[in-house]
Protein backbone atom coordinates (compact mmCIF):
# COMPACT_ATOMS: atom_id res chain seq x y z
CA UNK A 1 0.00 0.00 0.00
CA UNK A 2 2.97 2.30 0.69
CA UNK A 3 4.01 2.35 -2.95
CA UNK A 4 0.47 3.18 -4.03
CA UNK A 5 0.49 6.35 -1.93
CA UNK A 6 3.92 7.37 -3.20
CA UNK A 7 2.67 6.98 -6.77
CA UNK A 8 -0.62 8.69 -5.97
CA UNK A 9 1.16 11.69 -4.46
CA UNK A 10 3.31 11.95 -7.54
CA UNK A 11 0.20 11.89 -9.76
CA UNK A 12 -1.46 14.67 -7.80
CA UNK A 13 1.73 16.72 -7.76
CA UNK A 14 2.24 16.34 -11.50
CA UNK A 15 -1.34 17.45 -12.14
CA UNK A 16 -0.98 20.60 -10.11
CA UNK A 17 2.51 21.37 -11.41
CA UNK A 18 0.96 22.08 -14.77
CA UNK A 19 -0.68 25.39 -15.65
CA UNK A 20 -3.42 23.59 -17.56
CA UNK A 21 -4.85 22.38 -14.23
CA UNK A 22 -5.51 25.94 -13.13
CA UNK A 23 -6.94 26.93 -16.50
CA UNK A 24 -9.37 24.02 -16.29
CA UNK A 25 -10.19 24.86 -12.68
CA UNK A 26 -10.85 28.49 -13.60
CA UNK A 27 -13.19 27.80 -16.51
CA UNK A 28 -14.86 25.05 -14.58
CA UNK A 29 -15.67 27.44 -11.75
CA UNK A 30 -16.92 30.07 -14.19
CA UNK A 31 -19.32 27.63 -15.83
CA UNK A 32 -20.58 26.01 -12.62
CA UNK A 33 -20.94 29.47 -11.06
CA UNK A 34 -23.01 30.52 -14.02
CA UNK A 35 -25.02 27.33 -13.70
CA UNK A 36 -25.76 28.14 -10.07
CA UNK A 37 -26.84 31.63 -11.01
CA UNK A 38 -29.07 30.31 -13.77
CA UNK A 39 -30.68 27.80 -11.40
CA UNK A 40 -31.52 30.49 -8.85
CA UNK A 41 -32.86 32.84 -11.50
CA UNK A 42 -35.14 30.11 -12.78
CA UNK A 43 -36.49 29.48 -9.28
CA UNK A 44 -36.88 33.24 -8.67
CA UNK A 45 -39.02 33.57 -11.75
CA UNK A 46 -41.33 30.96 -10.32
CA UNK A 47 -40.64 28.42 -13.00
CA UNK A 48 -39.83 25.18 -11.34
CA UNK A 49 -40.78 23.62 -8.08
CA UNK A 50 -37.49 22.09 -7.12
CA UNK A 51 -34.92 22.87 -4.42
CA UNK A 52 -31.76 24.80 -5.21
CA UNK A 53 -29.66 21.61 -5.09
CA UNK A 54 -31.92 19.89 -7.61
CA UNK A 55 -31.93 22.94 -9.83
CA UNK A 56 -28.14 23.06 -9.77
CA UNK A 57 -27.58 19.44 -10.70
CA UNK A 58 -30.20 19.05 -13.40
CA UNK A 59 -29.63 21.80 -15.92
CA UNK A 60 -27.93 21.71 -19.28
CA UNK A 61 -25.25 23.97 -17.80
CA UNK A 62 -24.44 21.25 -15.31
CA UNK A 63 -24.00 18.50 -17.88
CA UNK A 64 -21.88 20.59 -20.18
CA UNK A 65 -18.88 21.06 -17.84
CA UNK A 66 -19.47 17.65 -16.27
CA UNK A 67 -18.93 15.83 -19.57
CA UNK A 68 -16.26 18.14 -20.88
CA UNK A 69 -13.95 17.84 -17.93
CA UNK A 70 -12.96 14.16 -18.17
CA UNK A 71 -10.71 14.42 -21.19
CA UNK A 72 -8.80 17.14 -19.34
CA UNK A 73 -8.45 15.21 -16.11
CA UNK A 74 -7.38 11.95 -17.74
CA UNK A 75 -5.67 12.56 -21.08
CA UNK A 76 -2.15 12.85 -19.69
CA UNK A 77 -2.10 10.00 -17.18
CA UNK A 78 -0.59 7.30 -19.39
CA UNK A 79 -0.10 9.04 -22.74
CA UNK A 80 2.39 11.54 -21.41
CA UNK A 81 4.56 8.98 -19.68
CA UNK A 82 4.71 6.72 -22.72
CA UNK A 83 5.53 9.67 -24.95
CA UNK A 84 8.24 11.07 -22.67
CA UNK A 85 9.68 7.61 -22.03
CA UNK A 86 9.39 8.07 -18.26
CA UNK A 87 7.24 4.96 -18.22
CA UNK A 88 10.45 2.98 -18.65
CA UNK A 89 11.92 4.54 -15.55
CA UNK A 90 8.68 4.07 -13.65
CA UNK A 91 8.16 0.43 -14.59
CA UNK A 92 11.73 -0.63 -13.81
CA UNK A 93 11.22 0.43 -10.21
CA UNK A 94 9.83 -2.37 -8.07
CA UNK A 95 6.16 -1.43 -8.54
CA UNK A 96 3.28 -3.59 -9.71
CA UNK A 97 1.44 -2.68 -12.89
CA UNK A 98 -1.80 -2.67 -10.93
CA UNK A 99 -0.37 -0.21 -8.40
CA UNK A 100 0.59 2.16 -11.20
CA UNK A 101 -2.80 1.91 -12.91
CA UNK A 102 -4.70 2.41 -9.67
CA UNK A 103 -2.52 5.32 -8.57
CA UNK A 104 -2.93 7.06 -11.89
CA UNK A 105 -6.67 6.49 -11.81
CA UNK A 106 -6.92 7.74 -8.24
CA UNK A 107 -4.89 10.82 -9.14
CA UNK A 108 -7.24 11.71 -11.99
CA UNK A 109 -10.28 11.06 -9.81
CA UNK A 110 -8.81 13.29 -7.13
CA UNK A 111 -8.50 16.14 -9.60
CA UNK A 112 -12.12 15.63 -10.63
CA UNK A 113 -13.23 15.81 -6.99
CA UNK A 114 -11.14 18.94 -6.43
CA UNK A 115 -12.95 20.53 -9.37
CA UNK A 116 -16.35 19.85 -7.84
CA UNK A 117 -15.48 20.63 -4.22
CA UNK A 118 -15.99 24.42 -4.52
CA UNK A 119 -19.58 23.84 -5.66
CA UNK A 120 -20.45 22.97 -2.06
CA UNK A 121 -19.62 26.57 -1.19
CA UNK A 122 -22.38 27.79 -3.50
CA UNK A 123 -25.01 26.19 -1.28
CA UNK A 124 -23.32 27.45 1.88
CA UNK A 125 -23.29 30.95 0.40
CA UNK A 126 -26.93 30.65 -0.59
CA UNK A 127 -28.01 29.56 2.88
CA UNK A 128 -25.95 32.25 4.61
CA UNK A 129 -27.29 35.05 2.44
CA UNK A 130 -30.93 34.07 2.11
CA UNK A 131 -31.38 32.18 5.35
CA UNK A 132 -33.32 29.55 3.38
CA UNK A 133 -32.54 25.86 2.95
CA UNK A 134 -30.87 24.98 -0.35
CA UNK A 135 -32.04 21.39 -0.13
CA UNK A 136 -35.16 19.71 1.20
CA UNK A 137 -33.07 17.41 3.37
CA UNK A 138 -29.46 16.37 3.91
CA UNK A 139 -30.19 13.33 1.73
CA UNK A 140 -30.28 15.62 -1.25
CA UNK A 141 -26.62 16.55 -0.77
CA UNK A 142 -25.60 13.01 0.01
CA UNK A 143 -27.43 11.68 -3.03
CA UNK A 144 -26.23 14.35 -5.43
CA UNK A 145 -22.59 14.24 -4.42
CA UNK A 146 -22.42 10.46 -4.18
CA UNK A 147 -23.83 10.00 -7.69
CA UNK A 148 -21.50 12.78 -8.85
CA UNK A 149 -18.59 10.79 -7.42
CA UNK A 150 -19.76 7.49 -8.86
CA UNK A 151 -20.34 8.92 -12.33
CA UNK A 152 -16.92 10.50 -12.02
CA UNK A 153 -15.45 7.11 -11.15
CA UNK A 154 -16.77 5.48 -14.30
CA UNK A 155 -16.01 8.34 -16.66
CA UNK A 156 -12.53 8.81 -15.21
CA UNK A 157 -11.80 5.14 -15.77
CA UNK A 158 -12.95 5.49 -19.39
CA UNK A 159 -10.59 8.44 -19.76
CA UNK A 160 -7.73 6.41 -18.27
CA UNK A 161 -8.40 3.58 -20.70
CA UNK A 162 -8.30 6.05 -23.60
CA UNK A 163 -5.02 7.47 -22.32
CA UNK A 164 -3.50 4.01 -22.01
CA UNK A 165 -4.37 3.30 -25.64
CA UNK A 166 -2.17 5.98 -27.18
CA UNK A 167 0.99 8.05 -26.77
CA UNK A 168 -0.81 11.15 -27.95
CA UNK A 169 -2.71 13.20 -25.38
CA UNK A 170 -4.97 14.82 -27.97
CA UNK A 171 -5.95 11.45 -29.37
CA UNK A 172 -6.57 10.22 -25.83
CA UNK A 173 -8.79 13.23 -25.16
CA UNK A 174 -10.78 12.63 -28.34
CA UNK A 175 -11.29 8.94 -27.65
CA UNK A 176 -12.46 9.54 -24.11
CA UNK A 177 -14.71 12.41 -25.15
CA UNK A 178 -16.31 10.32 -27.87
CA UNK A 179 -16.81 7.34 -25.56
CA UNK A 180 -18.23 9.43 -22.74
CA UNK A 181 -20.59 11.30 -25.08
CA UNK A 182 -21.75 8.03 -26.59
CA UNK A 183 -22.55 6.66 -23.14
CA UNK A 184 -24.31 9.87 -22.19
CA UNK A 185 -26.48 9.97 -25.33
CA UNK A 186 -27.36 6.33 -24.86
CA UNK A 187 -28.91 7.48 -21.60
CA UNK A 188 -30.84 10.20 -23.42
CA UNK A 189 -32.70 7.50 -25.33
CA UNK A 190 -34.94 6.97 -22.32
CA UNK A 191 -36.40 10.43 -22.91
CA UNK A 192 -37.37 9.84 -26.51
CA UNK A 193 -38.85 6.40 -25.90
CA UNK A 194 -42.57 6.81 -26.18
CA UNK A 195 -44.29 4.78 -23.49
CA UNK A 196 -43.24 4.24 -19.97
CA UNK A 197 -42.84 0.60 -19.18
CA UNK A 198 -41.30 -0.31 -22.53
CA UNK A 199 -38.32 -2.61 -22.23
CA UNK A 200 -35.93 -0.27 -24.04
CA UNK A 201 -36.78 2.48 -21.63
CA UNK A 202 -36.16 0.17 -18.72
CA UNK A 203 -32.79 -0.81 -20.14
CA UNK A 204 -31.62 2.69 -20.99
CA UNK A 205 -32.48 3.83 -17.50
CA UNK A 206 -29.48 1.87 -16.30
CA UNK A 207 -27.11 4.02 -18.37
CA UNK A 208 -28.81 7.37 -18.09
CA UNK A 209 -26.84 9.80 -15.95
CA UNK A 210 -29.66 12.32 -16.28
CA UNK A 211 -32.21 9.94 -14.80
CA UNK A 212 -29.81 8.96 -12.05
CA UNK A 213 -29.12 12.54 -11.17
CA UNK A 214 -32.82 13.42 -11.03
CA UNK A 215 -33.38 10.69 -8.46
CA UNK A 216 -30.22 11.11 -6.43
CA UNK A 217 -30.43 14.89 -6.14
CA UNK A 218 -33.85 14.42 -4.58
CA UNK A 219 -32.23 12.16 -2.04
CA UNK A 220 -33.47 8.90 -3.56
CA UNK A 221 -30.47 6.60 -3.36
CA UNK A 222 -31.25 3.76 -5.75
CA UNK A 223 -28.97 0.73 -5.55
CA UNK A 224 -29.15 -0.09 -9.27
CA UNK A 225 -27.02 2.86 -10.48
CA UNK A 226 -24.61 2.25 -7.58
CA UNK A 227 -24.02 -1.31 -8.76
CA UNK A 228 -23.84 -0.18 -12.38
CA UNK A 229 -21.23 2.53 -11.80
CA UNK A 230 -19.03 0.57 -9.44
CA UNK A 231 -19.02 -2.65 -11.45
CA UNK A 232 -18.41 -0.95 -14.77
CA UNK A 233 -15.62 1.12 -13.23
CA UNK A 234 -13.92 -2.06 -12.11
CA UNK A 235 -14.41 -3.56 -15.56
CA UNK A 236 -12.92 -0.57 -17.35
CA UNK A 237 -9.98 -0.36 -14.94
CA UNK A 238 -9.30 -4.01 -15.52
CA UNK A 239 -9.28 -3.35 -19.26
CA UNK A 240 -6.95 -0.40 -18.67
CA UNK A 241 -4.51 -2.60 -16.79
CA UNK A 242 -4.47 -5.09 -19.64
CA UNK A 243 -4.05 -2.48 -22.35
CA UNK A 244 -1.24 -0.94 -20.32
CA UNK A 245 0.56 -4.27 -20.02
CA UNK A 246 -0.12 -5.31 -23.57
CA UNK A 247 1.26 -2.13 -25.10
CA UNK A 248 4.46 -2.39 -23.10
CA UNK A 249 4.97 -6.02 -23.93
CA UNK A 250 4.40 -5.45 -27.58
CA UNK A 251 6.62 -2.40 -27.97
Amino acid sequence: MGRFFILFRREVASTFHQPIAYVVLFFFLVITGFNFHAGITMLNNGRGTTTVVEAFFNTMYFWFPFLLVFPFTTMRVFAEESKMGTIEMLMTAPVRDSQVVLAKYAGALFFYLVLWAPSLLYFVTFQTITGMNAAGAAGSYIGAYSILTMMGMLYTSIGCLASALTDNQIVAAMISFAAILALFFLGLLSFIMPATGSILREVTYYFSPIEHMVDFSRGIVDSRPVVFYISSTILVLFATLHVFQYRRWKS
Partner: protein
Amino acid sequence: MVKVEKLTKKFGANTAVDSINFEVQKGEIVGFLGPNGAGKSTTMKMLAGFLPPTSGTAEIAGCDVFTDSLRAREHIGYMPENVPLYTDMRVSEFLRYRASLKGVPGRRLRDRISDVLELCGLEDVEKKIISRLSKGYRQRVGLADAMVHEPDLLILDEPTIGLDPNQIRLVRDLIRNLRRHHTILISTHILPEVEMLCSRVIIINKGRIEALDTPQNLRARLGQEGHVLFDARVPDARVAAAELRKLEGVQTVNIRNDGPWSIFKIQCTPGHDPRETIYQFAVEKSWPVRELSRPPVSLEQVFAEVTNGEEL
Protein backbone atom coordinates in the same frame (compact mmCIF):
# COMPACT_ATOMS: atom_id res chain seq x y z
CA MET B 1 25.07 -11.65 -10.36
CA VAL B 2 23.60 -11.78 -13.85
CA LYS B 3 22.90 -15.01 -15.65
CA VAL B 4 21.40 -14.91 -19.11
CA GLU B 5 20.39 -18.06 -20.91
CA LYS B 6 19.13 -18.27 -24.47
CA LEU B 7 17.50 -14.89 -24.10
CA THR B 8 15.49 -14.01 -27.20
CA LYS B 9 13.28 -11.09 -28.11
CA LYS B 10 11.24 -10.94 -31.26
CA PHE B 11 9.24 -7.97 -32.49
CA GLY B 12 6.92 -9.55 -34.98
CA ALA B 13 9.08 -11.18 -37.63
CA ASN B 14 12.11 -9.19 -36.56
CA THR B 15 14.46 -10.85 -34.07
CA ALA B 16 16.10 -8.13 -32.01
CA VAL B 17 17.94 -10.42 -29.62
CA ASP B 18 18.75 -13.91 -30.76
CA SER B 19 19.33 -16.53 -28.08
CA ILE B 20 22.18 -14.91 -26.20
CA ASN B 21 24.01 -16.37 -23.21
CA PHE B 22 26.34 -14.66 -20.80
CA GLU B 23 27.15 -14.29 -17.14
CA VAL B 24 28.39 -11.37 -15.13
CA GLN B 25 30.15 -11.91 -11.81
CA LYS B 26 29.83 -9.65 -8.81
CA GLY B 27 32.07 -6.59 -8.99
CA GLU B 28 32.65 -6.70 -12.73
CA ILE B 29 32.17 -3.82 -15.13
CA VAL B 30 30.95 -5.32 -18.35
CA GLY B 31 30.74 -3.28 -21.52
CA PHE B 32 28.03 -3.96 -24.02
CA LEU B 33 29.25 -2.98 -27.44
CA GLY B 34 27.54 -2.98 -30.74
CA PRO B 35 26.39 -0.86 -33.65
CA ASN B 36 23.06 0.92 -33.46
CA GLY B 37 20.17 -1.49 -33.62
CA ALA B 38 22.30 -4.45 -32.56
CA GLY B 39 20.02 -5.29 -29.66
CA LYS B 40 21.92 -3.67 -26.79
CA SER B 41 19.05 -1.58 -25.48
CA THR B 42 16.55 -4.39 -25.94
CA THR B 43 18.73 -6.73 -23.90
CA MET B 44 19.11 -4.13 -21.19
CA LYS B 45 15.38 -3.44 -21.12
CA MET B 46 14.74 -7.13 -20.65
CA LEU B 47 17.29 -7.34 -17.84
CA ALA B 48 15.71 -4.30 -16.19
CA GLY B 49 12.34 -6.03 -16.25
CA PHE B 50 10.74 -3.56 -18.64
CA LEU B 51 10.31 -5.86 -21.64
CA PRO B 52 9.42 -9.51 -21.24
CA PRO B 53 11.62 -11.88 -23.23
CA THR B 54 10.06 -13.91 -26.05
CA SER B 55 11.95 -16.92 -24.77
CA GLY B 56 14.91 -17.76 -22.59
CA THR B 57 15.64 -16.61 -19.07
CA ALA B 58 17.56 -13.93 -17.28
CA GLU B 59 18.38 -13.97 -13.59
CA ILE B 60 19.52 -11.06 -11.46
CA ALA B 61 20.94 -12.02 -8.05
CA GLY B 62 19.07 -15.30 -8.29
CA CYS B 63 15.68 -13.76 -9.15
CA ASP B 64 14.17 -14.36 -12.55
CA VAL B 65 13.48 -11.00 -14.20
CA PHE B 66 10.16 -12.19 -15.54
CA THR B 67 8.58 -14.54 -13.02
CA ASP B 68 10.05 -12.82 -9.97
CA SER B 69 10.20 -9.38 -11.51
CA LEU B 70 9.59 -7.24 -8.42
CA ARG B 71 12.37 -8.82 -6.42
CA ALA B 72 14.74 -8.73 -9.38
CA ARG B 73 13.96 -5.05 -9.91
CA GLU B 74 14.87 -4.29 -6.31
CA HIS B 75 18.43 -5.34 -7.11
CA ILE B 76 18.70 -3.19 -10.20
CA GLY B 77 19.46 0.45 -10.80
CA TYR B 78 18.55 1.13 -14.40
CA MET B 79 19.34 4.24 -16.36
CA PRO B 80 17.46 4.19 -19.67
CA GLU B 81 18.82 5.63 -22.88
CA ASN B 82 18.15 9.38 -23.20
CA VAL B 83 17.42 9.53 -19.47
CA PRO B 84 13.71 10.25 -19.21
CA LEU B 85 12.97 12.22 -16.04
CA TYR B 86 9.96 13.98 -14.56
CA THR B 87 10.90 17.44 -15.72
CA ASP B 88 8.42 19.25 -13.49
CA MET B 89 10.16 18.15 -10.30
CA ARG B 90 13.12 19.58 -8.45
CA VAL B 91 16.25 17.43 -8.34
CA SER B 92 16.08 16.59 -4.63
CA GLU B 93 12.31 16.12 -4.82
CA PHE B 94 12.69 13.73 -7.73
CA LEU B 95 15.37 11.68 -5.99
CA ARG B 96 13.28 11.56 -2.84
CA TYR B 97 10.31 10.26 -4.82
CA ARG B 98 12.40 7.67 -6.61
CA ALA B 99 14.16 6.51 -3.48
CA SER B 100 10.95 5.97 -1.57
CA LEU B 101 9.39 4.27 -4.59
CA LYS B 102 12.31 1.88 -4.68
CA GLY B 103 11.82 1.08 -1.04
CA VAL B 104 14.48 3.11 0.74
CA PRO B 105 13.13 3.34 4.31
CA GLY B 106 12.08 6.79 5.51
CA ARG B 107 14.84 7.19 8.08
CA ARG B 108 17.54 6.55 5.49
CA LEU B 109 16.11 8.81 2.78
CA ARG B 110 17.97 11.94 3.81
CA ASP B 111 21.34 10.16 3.98
CA ARG B 112 20.94 8.34 0.70
CA ILE B 113 19.88 11.47 -1.14
CA SER B 114 22.73 13.59 0.18
CA ASP B 115 25.11 10.74 -0.66
CA VAL B 116 24.10 10.48 -4.30
CA LEU B 117 23.87 14.26 -4.67
CA GLU B 118 27.47 14.48 -3.54
CA LEU B 119 28.65 11.49 -5.55
CA CYS B 120 27.13 12.82 -8.76
CA GLY B 121 28.11 16.43 -8.15
CA LEU B 122 24.54 17.63 -8.00
CA GLU B 123 24.68 19.67 -4.79
CA ASP B 124 24.62 22.98 -6.70
CA VAL B 125 21.45 22.13 -8.58
CA GLU B 126 19.64 20.29 -5.81
CA LYS B 127 16.82 22.85 -5.70
CA LYS B 128 16.56 23.38 -9.45
CA ILE B 129 13.67 22.16 -11.55
CA ILE B 130 14.84 19.34 -13.82
CA SER B 131 13.50 20.96 -17.01
CA ARG B 132 15.99 23.82 -16.46
CA LEU B 133 19.00 21.53 -16.25
CA SER B 134 21.53 21.00 -19.02
CA LYS B 135 21.89 17.61 -20.64
CA GLY B 136 25.00 16.80 -18.61
CA TYR B 137 23.25 17.47 -15.34
CA ARG B 138 20.20 15.46 -16.37
CA GLN B 139 22.45 12.56 -17.17
CA ARG B 140 23.87 12.80 -13.68
CA VAL B 141 20.40 12.99 -12.17
CA GLY B 142 19.61 9.79 -14.05
CA LEU B 143 22.72 8.17 -12.64
CA ALA B 144 21.87 9.39 -9.14
CA ASP B 145 18.41 7.90 -9.57
CA ALA B 146 19.86 4.57 -10.70
CA MET B 147 21.97 4.19 -7.59
CA VAL B 148 19.89 5.91 -4.94
CA HIS B 149 18.62 2.63 -3.49
CA GLU B 150 22.11 1.05 -3.45
CA PRO B 151 21.35 -1.65 -6.00
CA ASP B 152 23.74 -4.55 -6.51
CA LEU B 153 23.63 -4.13 -10.24
CA LEU B 154 23.71 -0.94 -12.28
CA ILE B 155 22.44 -1.14 -15.84
CA LEU B 156 23.46 1.98 -17.73
CA ASP B 157 22.26 2.38 -21.31
CA GLU B 158 24.59 4.74 -23.12
CA PRO B 159 25.33 6.94 -20.14
CA THR B 160 27.63 9.33 -22.00
CA ILE B 161 25.74 9.84 -25.23
CA GLY B 162 25.20 13.47 -26.18
CA LEU B 163 27.62 14.89 -23.65
CA ASP B 164 30.57 17.18 -24.30
CA PRO B 165 34.09 15.77 -23.74
CA ASN B 166 34.39 17.29 -20.25
CA GLN B 167 31.07 15.89 -19.15
CA ILE B 168 31.95 12.51 -20.62
CA ARG B 169 35.08 12.49 -18.50
CA LEU B 170 33.11 13.39 -15.40
CA VAL B 171 30.56 10.65 -15.94
CA ARG B 172 33.30 8.17 -16.73
CA ASP B 173 35.20 9.01 -13.54
CA LEU B 174 31.97 8.66 -11.65
CA ILE B 175 31.35 5.20 -13.09
CA ARG B 176 34.91 4.17 -12.35
CA ASN B 177 34.42 5.16 -8.72
CA LEU B 178 31.26 3.11 -8.53
CA ARG B 179 32.92 -0.15 -9.31
CA ARG B 180 33.89 -0.67 -5.70
CA HIS B 181 30.29 -1.10 -4.62
CA HIS B 182 28.37 -2.16 -7.69
CA THR B 183 28.39 -4.61 -10.52
CA ILE B 184 27.95 -2.56 -13.66
CA LEU B 185 26.58 -3.39 -17.07
CA ILE B 186 27.14 -0.49 -19.42
CA SER B 187 26.22 -0.14 -23.07
CA THR B 188 27.91 2.22 -25.41
CA HIS B 189 29.31 2.59 -28.85
CA ILE B 190 32.14 4.80 -27.71
CA LEU B 191 35.09 2.44 -27.73
CA PRO B 192 37.74 4.28 -25.71
CA GLU B 193 35.16 4.33 -22.96
CA VAL B 194 35.03 0.58 -22.88
CA GLU B 195 38.80 0.23 -22.97
CA MET B 196 39.06 2.56 -20.00
CA LEU B 197 36.23 1.23 -17.90
CA CYS B 198 35.39 -2.35 -18.53
CA SER B 199 36.86 -5.55 -17.24
CA ARG B 200 35.02 -7.52 -19.90
CA VAL B 201 33.42 -6.72 -23.21
CA ILE B 202 30.45 -8.25 -24.94
CA ILE B 203 30.27 -7.39 -28.61
CA ILE B 204 26.80 -7.88 -29.96
CA ASN B 205 25.72 -7.58 -33.56
CA LYS B 206 22.36 -8.27 -35.17
CA GLY B 207 21.11 -9.72 -31.91
CA ARG B 208 23.93 -12.22 -31.48
CA ILE B 209 26.99 -12.17 -29.27
CA GLU B 210 30.01 -12.01 -31.56
CA ALA B 211 32.71 -11.80 -28.93
CA LEU B 212 32.97 -11.95 -25.17
CA ASP B 213 36.32 -11.37 -23.53
CA THR B 214 38.54 -8.86 -21.77
CA PRO B 215 39.55 -5.86 -23.88
CA GLN B 216 43.19 -7.04 -23.69
CA ASN B 217 42.38 -10.52 -24.97
CA LEU B 218 40.22 -9.18 -27.75
CA ARG B 219 43.03 -6.96 -28.89
CA ALA B 220 45.57 -9.72 -28.55
CA ARG B 221 43.46 -11.98 -30.66
CA LEU B 222 43.71 -9.54 -33.54
CA GLY B 223 47.15 -8.28 -32.57
CA GLN B 224 48.62 -11.59 -33.62
CA GLU B 225 47.63 -10.85 -37.14
CA GLY B 226 48.89 -7.29 -36.87
CA HIS B 227 51.50 -5.49 -38.85
CA VAL B 228 54.83 -3.75 -38.36
CA LEU B 229 55.81 -0.32 -39.61
CA PHE B 230 59.35 0.01 -40.85
CA ASP B 231 60.54 3.44 -41.92
CA ALA B 232 64.05 3.61 -43.43
CA ARG B 233 66.14 5.28 -46.12
CA VAL B 234 66.98 2.58 -48.64
CA PRO B 235 68.71 2.87 -52.02
CA ASP B 236 65.90 1.11 -53.88
CA ALA B 237 62.57 0.57 -52.23
CA ARG B 238 61.43 -2.20 -54.55
CA VAL B 239 64.54 -4.23 -54.07
CA ALA B 240 64.41 -3.66 -50.32
CA ALA B 241 60.81 -4.81 -50.23
CA ALA B 242 61.66 -7.97 -52.09
CA GLU B 243 64.45 -8.65 -49.63
CA LEU B 244 62.26 -7.97 -46.62
CA ARG B 245 59.65 -10.35 -47.91
CA LYS B 246 62.16 -13.18 -47.67
CA LEU B 247 62.65 -12.64 -43.91
CA GLU B 248 61.07 -15.01 -41.47
CA GLY B 249 57.65 -13.98 -40.18
CA VAL B 250 56.95 -11.56 -43.03
CA GLN B 251 53.99 -12.17 -45.27
CA THR B 252 53.49 -9.13 -47.46
CA VAL B 253 55.12 -5.73 -47.76
CA ASN B 254 53.58 -2.47 -48.94
CA ILE B 255 55.66 0.56 -49.78
CA ARG B 256 54.87 4.23 -49.35
CA ASN B 257 57.37 6.97 -50.13
CA ASP B 258 58.09 10.00 -48.03
CA GLY B 259 60.82 11.94 -49.85
CA PRO B 260 64.04 9.91 -49.58
CA TRP B 261 62.44 7.71 -46.95
CA SER B 262 60.41 4.63 -47.60
CA ILE B 263 57.72 3.44 -45.26
CA PHE B 264 57.11 -0.30 -45.35
CA LYS B 265 53.92 -1.73 -43.96
CA ILE B 266 54.78 -5.30 -43.20
CA GLN B 267 52.09 -7.85 -42.63
CA CYS B 268 53.32 -10.51 -40.24
CA THR B 269 52.51 -14.19 -40.20
CA PRO B 270 50.30 -14.96 -37.21
CA GLY B 271 52.22 -15.56 -34.03
CA HIS B 272 55.39 -13.92 -35.27
CA ASP B 273 56.99 -10.65 -34.32
CA PRO B 274 59.63 -10.00 -37.00
CA ARG B 275 60.89 -6.72 -35.57
CA GLU B 276 64.18 -8.06 -34.33
CA THR B 277 64.94 -9.78 -37.63
CA ILE B 278 64.13 -6.60 -39.50
CA TYR B 279 66.40 -4.61 -37.23
CA GLN B 280 69.30 -7.02 -37.74
CA PHE B 281 68.70 -6.93 -41.45
CA ALA B 282 68.72 -3.10 -41.53
CA VAL B 283 71.94 -2.99 -39.56
CA GLU B 284 73.47 -5.46 -41.96
CA LYS B 285 72.50 -3.30 -44.90
CA SER B 286 73.35 -0.11 -42.95
CA TRP B 287 70.03 1.49 -43.75
CA PRO B 288 69.28 4.54 -41.62
CA VAL B 289 66.07 3.73 -39.70
CA ARG B 290 63.53 6.35 -38.56
CA GLU B 291 60.91 4.06 -37.13
CA LEU B 292 60.34 0.42 -36.43
CA SER B 293 57.11 -0.17 -34.59
CA ARG B 294 54.14 -2.37 -34.14
CA PRO B 295 51.06 -0.14 -33.77
CA PRO B 296 48.71 -1.45 -31.06
CA VAL B 297 45.44 -2.80 -32.29
CA SER B 298 42.64 -0.65 -30.95
CA LEU B 299 39.34 -1.98 -29.80
CA GLU B 300 37.92 -0.01 -32.67
CA GLN B 301 39.61 -2.39 -35.08
CA VAL B 302 38.39 -5.36 -33.11
CA PHE B 303 34.91 -3.93 -33.27
CA ALA B 304 35.05 -3.31 -37.01
CA GLU B 305 36.44 -6.78 -37.55
CA VAL B 306 33.85 -8.49 -35.46
CA THR B 307 30.77 -6.58 -36.56
CA ASN B 308 31.56 -6.15 -40.25
CA GLY B 309 33.99 -8.93 -40.90
CA GLU B 310 36.13 -6.11 -42.24
CA GLU B 311 39.74 -6.79 -43.15
CA LEU B 312 42.16 -4.47 -41.46
